[in-house]
């Protein structure tokens, strides 16, 4: 039989727990941990605010850049071959009409106004008739 004194596990555990239990965090450490965490918290909020401000600036910058691109004359529009349109003369005459160009609605379609020329012949005839009547009246007046 072993006659050496033998400390039990329970006694040993109790002894160690009592020894360690006295080691509590000093109040100064408690305060410094509190303030360090508070500082960390405010740093976090500040970082968040800075990130939000940076995001706003970036969005604004993108919006301005977009607007500038739209209004810039150097926009990259696809180049189409330039079609040279030969404009027809403003007015020309046919045998019976004078054609006056009125409106161009499509490359191949032009609205024109046709002014018939026979009205002028009528007028000439009418004027000739009036002239002959005037002559006859004058001749009769002179004879009497």
């Amino acid at each position: 039989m072993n006659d050496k004194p033998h400390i039990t596990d329970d006694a040993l555990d109790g002894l160690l727990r009592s020894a360690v239990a006295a080691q509590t965090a000093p109040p100064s450490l408690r305060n410094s941990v509190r303030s360090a965490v508070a500082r960390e918290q405010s740093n976090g909020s500040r970082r968040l605010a800075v990130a939000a401000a940076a995001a706003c600036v970036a969005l604004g910058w993108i919006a301005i850049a977009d607007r500038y691109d739209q209004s810039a004359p150097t926009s990259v529009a696809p180049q189409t071959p330039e079609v040279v349109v030969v404009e027809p003369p403003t007015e020309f005459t046919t045998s019976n009409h004078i054609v006056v160009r009125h409106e161009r609605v499509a490359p191949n379609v032009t609205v024109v106004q046709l002014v018939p020329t026979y009205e002028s012949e009528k007028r000439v005839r009418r004027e000739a008739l009036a002239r002959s009547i005037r002559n006859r009246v004058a001749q009769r007046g002179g004879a009497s």
Partner: protein
Amino acid sequence: MAEAGFSERLLELHLDGVYRYAFRLTQDADAAADLTQETMLRAWRRRTSLRDAAAAKVWLLRIADNAWNDTLRRKLRLRKHEEPAEQESADPRPPATGGVEHQETLNRALAALDALPDRQRRVMHLAVCESLPQAEVAEVLGITTQAVKASLAAGRKRLREQLQDIDQQLQTKR
């Protein structure tokens, strides 16, 4: 803010436990305070990674253990470049709270605990002083439960040998 209040309450609740473990690791009052603060700051920065508040103690002790391992690695790197400095640290023993004789006994127990090899010391502290189950001790230290059992048995054996006369004193007092 519910989350912040919750986390602050949690840190407050486990501050003593973390400090005790830091003291066991560093064996120095100032270094233990620094390690505790470092642990709490790391825990605060990673507070969203804590899923279960009931596991907070194990989580915090693991952070403390990792922080101390980082410190040891840094010290090891520095020691390669610097001359060894004269160590002058504060008395790691707790302040006297009871009778002189009783305090002597507690100091001897602490000295024996601190004299254990590193892993045995950590295991003994977590399993005995913090009353963590062996599985949780294994989780904190990142080792297997078998390794915890082995370290615990070896630590107890060594402490029993060193504290035989204390047991005699305890028995004569009864």
